[in-house]
C-alpha cells in the first residue's frame, strides 16, 4: 500500500504555511529546523517505496485521491513509478541538505523564517510536478515552481538587481510556459485526456508524425525555459542574485531539472518525433559548448557555476535528443549531487570571504577551510569527468549514446567532447583560483571554516558525488534496471560494446585530464594571467546576448508598453471612462431644468400625463 504518498507533498506545504503565518514567532533557528525536518520526513516516507522499486518488489502504479477536473481526465493522483521516485529522492534528499545548510547560511537574516517558507513552497511545487499523474497537474507544479523561483531569486528584493533578476527569470519562464501550454492544448485535442498512462499507451496508434513533432517541439520550448537552454538560458546567470542555497536548490536539484524530467516523462512522444530529437540534440550540444565557453571567462565564482549548470543541462538535453533517456536522467541525478555540492561549497567560500564573490580576491583558502576544500575537490573531479567520480560515468554515457548514432551525429559528439574539455578547464580554474596560490584577500578579511550545519551537507553530497556513478557502470546497470519500468514503452538504444565503451571512456578521460593540466599550468602560478580585452571581455559579458535581447525584444517591448501607458491608457481607456461620465453629467444638466420648483408646472405635467393616459386607454380599448 502506497496510499500515504500524498504526505510527501503535504509535509513541505504544511511547513510553508506554518513558516508563512507563524514564522516570526517561531524565530531563528527553529523555523529553519522545522523546514528541514519536514522535508527530511518527506524523504524518509519516500525512501522505502523507492527501495522497493530498486529491488524489483514493486510495479508502477497510479494512486488516485479525488477527481479534480474529470472533463480533462485530470485527477488529483500520483503516478508512482521509478522516474518519479528518483526525482522525489533527489528533490527531498538534496533539498533537505540544502535546508540544513541554509540554517547556518541564512543566520541573522531579518526574513529568516520567510526564507524557509519559500524554500518549502519550492520543494512542494517541485514534488507536485514530478508526482503528477497527468499533464494538467504537472502544469500546476510547473507554474508553482516558476512562482517560487521568482520569490526566492528576488528574496533580497531591496537590491534592484535581485528584483530584476527575479522578474527576468519569471518572464523568460513564461515564454517557455507558453510552449508547454500550447503543447497541452494539442495533446488534449488529439487524445481527449491529460492522463499520462492513457496518452503514452495510445500514442503510437493515434499520433501522426506531424502532430507528434508539433507537440514535442512545443514541449521542448517549455523545457528550454525551465532547463535554461538556448535561447532562453539568460535568466539563470542572473538568478545568482538570490542567496546561495537558492542557487543550489534551483540550479542543481530542482527547477532546472524540471524541463529534462518533463521530456523524459514524455519520452514516448519524443520517440515518435525523430526530427524533434535532432533539434533537441543540436540545441543541447550548442548550449553545452556555448555556456562552457562563457564559464571560462567569468570571474564571479557563482557565475562560473551558473554557466557550468547551463552547460551540464545541455548534456542532459543532448541525451534526451539522441534518445538516451536513461543517460539523460542519470546525468541529471549525478549533476544534482555534484552541482549542489559545488554551489554550497561556493556559498561556504563566499560566507568565509564576507560576501565577496570575485575569484581574483580569493586564493590560498585551502588551509583556512579544509572541509570545504576537500569536498569542493570531489565536486570538481566529478564535474570534470574524472574516473571514478560520478560525473565521469554519466557524462560518458551521453557521449557514448551520441557517438553510437554515427553519421552526422558525430559532429554533436565532437562538440560535447570539446565542451567536456572546457568544463575541466574552467572548473580547474575556479578550484585553483579559489584554493591555491597566495592569498589575494582584501585587508581585514578573516576566512574561517563554516559551522557544522554547513559542512555536514557538503560531506554527504561529496560522498554521493563520489559514489553515485557506480550505480550505472557498463558492468553493472543498476540504475538502468531501476528506471526500466518508466521507459518500458520506449525503445532502448543498444548499449555500446565494452570495447567501444573503453575507447570512448579513455578518450573522454584524456580530454578531461588535458583540460585540467592545461588549466593548472595556466593558473597555478604566483601571478594570475592577465585576462582582459578581446575574447575575455566578450566572454565576461556573455557575448552580449543579453544586450542583443535587450535591443531586439526588451526595448521594443518597452516602447509598446510606454505607448500603451502614455497614449492608450490616458486617451482610450480613461477617455472612455471620462467620456461616459461627461455624457451623463451634461444629460443631467439638461434634465435638471425641468425641476423648476413651480408647483403648478408639476401639476400641469400630471394633468397632461393623465389626459394622455386616458387617450391611450381609449385607443387601446377601441373607443376612438
Amino acid at each position: 500500500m502506497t496510499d500515504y504518498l500524498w504526505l510527501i507533498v503535504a509535509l513541505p506545504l504544511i511547513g510553508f504555511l506554518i513558516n508563512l503565518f507563524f514564522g516570526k514567532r517561531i524565530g531563528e533557528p527553529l523555523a529553519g529546523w522545522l523546514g528541514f525536518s519536514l522535508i527530511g520526513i518527506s524523504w524518509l516516507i519516500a525512501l522505502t517505496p523507492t527501495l522497493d522499486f530498486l529491488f524489483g518488489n514493486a510495479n508502477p502504479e497510479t494512486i488516485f485521491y479525488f477527481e479534480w477536473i474529470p472533463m480533462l481526465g485530470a485527477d488529483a493522483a500520483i503516478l508512482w513509478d521509478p522516474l518519479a521516485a528518483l526525482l522525489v529522492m533527489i528533490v527531498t534528499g538534496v533539498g533537505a541538505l540544502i535546508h540544513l545548510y541554509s540554517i547556518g547560511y541564512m543566520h541573522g537574516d531579518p526574513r529568516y523564517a520567510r526564507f524557509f517558507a519559500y524554500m518549502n513552497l519550492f520543494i512542494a511545487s517541485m514534488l507536485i510536478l514530478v508526482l503528477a499523474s497527468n499533464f494538467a497537474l504537472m502544469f500546476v507544479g510547473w507554474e508553482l515552481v516558476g512562482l517560487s523561483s521568482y520569490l526566492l531569486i528576488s528574496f533580497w528584493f531591496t537590491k534592484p538587481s535581485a528584483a530584476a533578476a527575479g522578474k527576468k527569470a519569471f518572464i523568460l519562464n513564461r515564454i517557455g510556459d507558453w510552449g508547454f501550454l500550447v503543447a497541452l492544448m494539442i495533446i488534449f485535442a488529439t487524445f481527449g485526456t491529460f492522463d499520462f498512462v492513457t496518452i503514452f499507451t495510445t500514442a503510437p496508434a493515434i499520433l501522426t508524425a506531424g502532430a507528434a513533432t508539433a507537440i514535442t517541439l512545443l514541449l521542448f520550448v517549455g523545457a528550454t525555459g525551465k532547463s535554461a537552454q538556448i535561447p532562453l538560458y539568460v535568466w539563470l546567470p542572473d538568478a545568482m542574485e538570490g542567496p546561495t542555497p537558492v542557487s543550489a536548490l534551483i540550479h542543481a536539484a530542482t527547477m532546472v531539472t524540471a524541463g529534462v524530467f518533463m521530456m523524459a516523462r514524455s519520452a514516448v512522444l519524443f520517440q515518435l518525433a525523430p526530427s524533434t530529437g535532432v533539434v533537441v540534440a543540436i540545441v543541447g550540444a550548442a548550449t553545452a559548448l556555448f555556456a562552457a565557453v562563457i564559464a571560462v571567462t567569468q570571474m564571479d565564482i557563482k557565475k562560473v557555476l551558473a554557466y557550468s549548470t547551463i552547460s551540464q543541462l545541455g548534456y542532459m538535453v543532448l541525451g534526451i535528443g539522441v534518445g538516451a533517456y536513461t543517460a539523460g536522467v542519470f546525468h541529471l541525478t549525478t549533476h544534482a549531487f555534484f552541482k549542489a555540492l559545488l554551489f554550497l561549497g561556493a556559498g561556504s567560500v563566499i560566507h568565509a570571504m564576507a560576501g565577496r564573490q570575485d575569484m581574483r580576491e580569493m586564493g590560498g583558502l585551502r588551509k583556512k577551510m579544509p572541509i570545504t576544500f576537500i569536498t569542493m575537490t570531489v565536486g570538481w573531479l566529478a564535474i570534470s569527468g574524472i574516473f571514478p567520480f560520478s560525473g565521469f560515468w554519466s557524462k560518458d554515457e551521453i557521449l557514448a549514446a551520441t557517438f553510437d548514432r554515427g553519421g552526422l551525429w558525430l559532429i554533436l559528439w565532437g562538440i560535447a567532447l570539446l565542451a567536456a574539455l572546457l568544463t575541466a578547464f574552467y572548473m580547474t580554474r575556479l578550484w585553483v583560483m579559489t584554493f591555491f596560490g597566495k592569498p589575494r584577500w582584501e585587508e581585514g578579511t578573516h576566512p574561517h571554516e563554516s559551522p557544522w550545519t554547513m559542512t555536514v551537507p557538503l560531506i554527504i553530497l561529496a560522498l554521493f558525488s563520489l559514489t553515485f556513478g557506480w550505480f550505472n557502470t557498463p558492468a553493472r546497470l543498476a540504475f538502468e534496471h531501476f528506471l526500466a519500468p518508466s521507459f518500458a514503452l520506449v525503445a532502448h538504444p543498444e548499449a555500446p560494446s565494452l570495447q567501444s565503451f573503453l575507447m570512448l571512456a579513455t578518450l573522454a578521460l584524456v580530454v578531461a585530464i588535458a583540460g585540467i593540466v592545461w588549466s593548472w599550468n595556466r593558473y597555478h602560478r604566483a601571478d594570475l594571467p592577465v585576462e582582459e580585452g578581446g575574447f575575455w571581455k566578450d566572454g565576461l559579458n556573455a557575448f552580449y546576448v543579453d544586450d542583443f535581447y535587450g535591443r531586439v525584444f526588451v526595448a521594443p517591448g518597452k516602447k509598446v508598453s510606454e505607448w500603451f501607458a502614455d497614449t492608450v491608457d490616458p486617451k482610450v481607456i480613461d477617455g472612455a471612462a471620462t467620456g461616459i461620465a461627461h455624457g451623463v453629467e451634461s444629460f443631467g444638466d439638461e434634465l435638471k431644468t425641468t425641476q423648476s420648483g413651480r408647483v403648478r408646472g408639476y401639476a400641469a405635467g400630471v394633468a397632461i400625463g393623465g389626459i394622455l393616459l386616458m387617450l391611450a386607454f381609449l385607443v387601446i380599448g377601441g373607443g376612438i
Partner: protein
Amino acid sequence: MTVTVTWYLILAAGLFSIGVGGVLIRRNALVMFMSIELMLNSVNLTFVALSKNLGLIEGQVAALFVMVVAAAEVTIGLAIIVAIFRRRSSANVDELAEMKG
C-alpha cells in the same frame, strides 16, 4: 325624466375638471388646496354612484377611505400652508421655488 347614473358621472367629471383647472390656474396655495378637495370629492361621487348602480358595497367603502385620507391630508396641508404664510405673509406658490434644480 329620471336621473340615471350618467348624470352623476357627468357631474363628477365636471367637478373634477373644475378642480384640475383650479390647481393649474390659481396661485394661492389655499385655493389650490380647495381645488384638490374638489377633485377628491368628485371621485367620491363617482365611487358612490357606481356602487349604487352596480349594487356593490366596495365603492362606498373606497369613498369612506378617501374621506379619511382627505381629512388627514387637510390637517397636514393646512398646517404647512399656515406655517408658510406666517413666514412670508404670502401663500403664492410661484414664489415657493427654492428647491428647483
